[in-house]
């Protein structure tokens, strides 16, 4: 056992690889939040009057709300006046080609393994890169627009497709939904906007890459994705941040709308800076993600690999409004050192014969705490609704905790809801079996963890799956309690 403890120690001390800072000129607001901040952001983005009003309304409501205390996480109180709410890399106003992007910036994304160049065409991924508060560039725009797909930054969408933005913004996550959603509604700076027209199947994966670069800033991005009738889109999201001693806040809102027979697949690999091994620094990741299956036979699938952030508070949810609609949630959440994660999903069955499936795998190591919190609600009208949930937790070491809070509320007698959960450590017999066959303990653990997460990782698009697997290996391999 001492061997594996040693391995565990080595692993837990492995450094965060994406922790560099890019030295680029920033255009940022001073710290603090008041109505003027909101007005400034809105003016900076040249927003129409209705959006400013919408923001101000959100801000006023936010002032009256209280920070939620129910999540199973502890962190010092956030001083919302000590945050920079707007920070953008200085650059020319419009970019006609990628060559015009600040070379420093491009180098940043190269370092992160995301090439903004068109050479990426080979892999067929369109990328929208968001650094600090604003979207830097969106690739493959022309090609996508031939099909009628709109894929651009939120600011651009506000200018060019105000009718769509106005119709759907806040329709899934209302302003008053929760504390952080209200804050985001007031101060969101940018994000991605995507619209897939009727009957179109997006030919490539759409992707957003988020990066917090500047110090003391908060990142508040807003993503809105609309899949019109019979369309399909697969959307990827990735994120990293530099190593800093202070905690930074990330409060995003993601809204998905799937019309009749549309399908949205939303995948996230979340790797914000988790803080150092003593729990210093790291990102507070307070995110509201929700999708609505507005039409019949619509499908929304969330897949997430959560390895970063000091504190995570995130519940990607599905409102299954259309009859026969389907919601899925696949999650791997890994916490190490002093990380805390309270994550899960909500499946609200409203329509008839709606189905949902939840597969959640939690892995806790070090001094971390990992909670699954989920709600499956079957409303009165949801005849024949079906849910299957499975949440497993794996514990590594005796200093960590794994918690499960599943809420199941059933109001219809023709529905079937199943939930099962297990908590255990990696079996000594499994390790022994591997050892016996010449596989070293460290490798055996990686193998077992990968096998444990396979069900979720299989849901990820190819290149993301590879990245996720590497991430898992870095976070955990070899750690047996």
């Amino acid at each position: 056992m001492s061997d594996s403890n040693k391995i565990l120690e080595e692993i837990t001390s492995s450094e965060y690889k994406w922790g560099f800072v890019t030295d680029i000129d920033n255009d940022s607001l001073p710290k603090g939040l008041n109505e003027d901040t909101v007005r400034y952001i809105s003016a900076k983005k040249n927003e129409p009057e209705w959006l400013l009003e919408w923001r101000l309304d959100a801000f006023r409501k936010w002032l009256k709300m209280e920070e939620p205390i129910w999540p199973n996480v502890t962190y010092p109180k956030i001083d919302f006046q000590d945050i920079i709410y707007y920070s953008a890399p200085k650059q020319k106003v419009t970019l006609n080609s990628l060559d015009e992007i600040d070379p420093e910036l491009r180098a940043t994304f190269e370092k992160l393994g995301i090439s903004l160049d068109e050479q990426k065409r080979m892999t067929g991924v369109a990328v929208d890169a968001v650094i600090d508060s604003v979207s830097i560039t969106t690739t493959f725009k022309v090609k996508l627009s031939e099909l009628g797909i709109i894929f651009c930054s939120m600011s651009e969408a506000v200018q060019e497709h105000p009718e769509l933005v106005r119709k759907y913004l806040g329709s899934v996550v209302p302003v008053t939904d929760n504390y952080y959603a209200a804050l985001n509604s007031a101060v969101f700076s940018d994000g991605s906007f995507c619209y897939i027209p009727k009957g179109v199947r997006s030919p490539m994966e759409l992707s957003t890459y988020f990066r917090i670069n500047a110090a003391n800033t908060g990142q508040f991005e807003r993503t809105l994705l609309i899949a019109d009738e019979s369309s399909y889109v697969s959307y990827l999201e990735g994120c990293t941040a530099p190593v800093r001693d202070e905690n930074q806040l990330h409060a995003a809102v993601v809204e998905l709308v799937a019309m009749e027979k549309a399908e949205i697949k939303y995948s996230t690999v979340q790797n914000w800076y988790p803080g150092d091994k003593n729990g210093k620094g790291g990102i507070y990741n307070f995110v509201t993600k929700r999708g609505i299956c507005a039409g019949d036979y619509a499908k929304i699938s969330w897949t997430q690999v959560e390895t970063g952030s000091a504190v995570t508070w995130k519940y990607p949810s599905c409102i299954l409004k259309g009859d026969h609609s389907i919601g899925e949630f696949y999650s791997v959440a890994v916490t190490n050192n002093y990380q805390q994660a309270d994550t899960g999903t909500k499946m609200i069955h409203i329509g008839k014969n709606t189905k949902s499936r939840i597969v959640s795998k939690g892995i806790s190591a070090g001094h971390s705490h990992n909670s699954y919190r989920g709600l499956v609600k079957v409303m009165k009208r949801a005849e024949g609704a079906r849910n299957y949930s499975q949440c497993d937790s794996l514990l590594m070491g005796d200093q960590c905790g794994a918690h499960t809070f599943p809420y199941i509320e059933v109001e219809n007698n023709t529905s079937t809801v199943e939930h099962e959960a297990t908590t255990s450590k990696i079996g000594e017999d499994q390790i022994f079996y591997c050892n016996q066959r010449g596989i070293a303990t460290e490798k055996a653990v990686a193998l077992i963890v990968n096998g444990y997460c396979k069900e979720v990782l299989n849901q990820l698009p190819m290149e993301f799956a590879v990245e996720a697997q590497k991430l898992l290996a870095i976070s955990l391999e070899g750690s047996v309690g």
Partner: protein
Amino acid sequence: MTTELKESLIQHFNTLEKTPSSALLVDTRKEAISAFQELGFPTTKHEEWKYTNLKNTIAKTYAIESAATFSAEDIKTLTALPIDCYKVIFVNGIFSPSLSTIDAAGVTIEPFQTSNQEVVKNYFAKNLPYNDSMVALNVAFATAGTLIHVKAKQHVAKPIVCFYLSDVRSANVFAQPSVLVVVEEAASATVVELNRSLGSNTAFTNAFTHAILKKEAYLEQYKIQNDIDNSNFVHNSQIVHEGKSNSYTTTITLNGGLVRNNLNITLGAEHCEAYLNGLYLEKGAQHVDNHTLVDHAMPNCYSNELYKGILDGKSTGVFNGKIWVRKDAQKTNAFQSNKNILLSKEASVHTKPQLEIFADDVKCSHGATTGQLDPEAMFYLRARGVGEDKAKKMLVHAIAFDVLDKVKHDELRAYLEQEIEERLK
């Protein structure tokens, strides 16, 4: 409205303090009343009471600790039970030694006032965290409670049956029976708790049973809740285990109004085992809420929990099972299962099987299902000429059987089977 009952209870406490019987447990009770005063009655804003609303119950006016006028005949009908047992009778929450059979071998059953004060003081409500104000409320008025003290190495063969009787013929009654069960080393006993009311007004009972299991002790507990429609029953049970002790708790809820069971088990030493079983068969506008907490504080303990519910009419069911495995509790095995069947369109169920685990070398699992009677089984029976109603009953019976099968006392099981048969008619 809600403040009224609270205020009158606090007032009642202050009046009682001037009477001679108030010397009993005075510090414990004072602490409890201030906890209750601070917390008040639980509301749906309280996470543990999210789905159970006491508002309508506490809005009524109650007679508190009122004297009952039961005739000998009434008592006889109310305490009828086809089982050879010792009867411990509470009337409107107050232990009545004259009505009870207390000359039992191996066990003493006495009111707190005259029993071994050391034992009462050392165990009753000791180190209770008053996170639920209903427990605090009971403890604050626990002067008329009873001590069931099972002597070391004694096996009490006959079940000890506690009857919580309420006389609601002339007024609404608020009753708070308190029981302390101490099972000494290597002793064993069976304790049954039954609540029954007479009349058509509302009975609101807030019971508290504190059981202490010493080394190698064994306790079987049965809570049988089958009362009038107007009976609102909150039952708080606390079971504290010492080394190598086993407890076996079964909660069966048949008729009643609002029923809330808080069953907290602390496995406070190594090699303890706790079994928790429950069955709720609801209809009409019933509301049954089972909250269980198994606190694995020490290593090498085992807990196994099975709760089943069948809900008909407009009834609502709540199950909240928490398994808490502390850092030191390595080698814990904890299992939990909750299965619900909804028979009607209006019935609903809220279940939350919860695991909180701080140790790594554990095996814990929980499962919860909600569904309807298996259509294939139904078809099988129908194909063999069994009518729909009968087939339904057979299947419901089969579901209930899983839990009934775990009732170890033969006479008691036969009695319960008959009661369930009656209910399914």
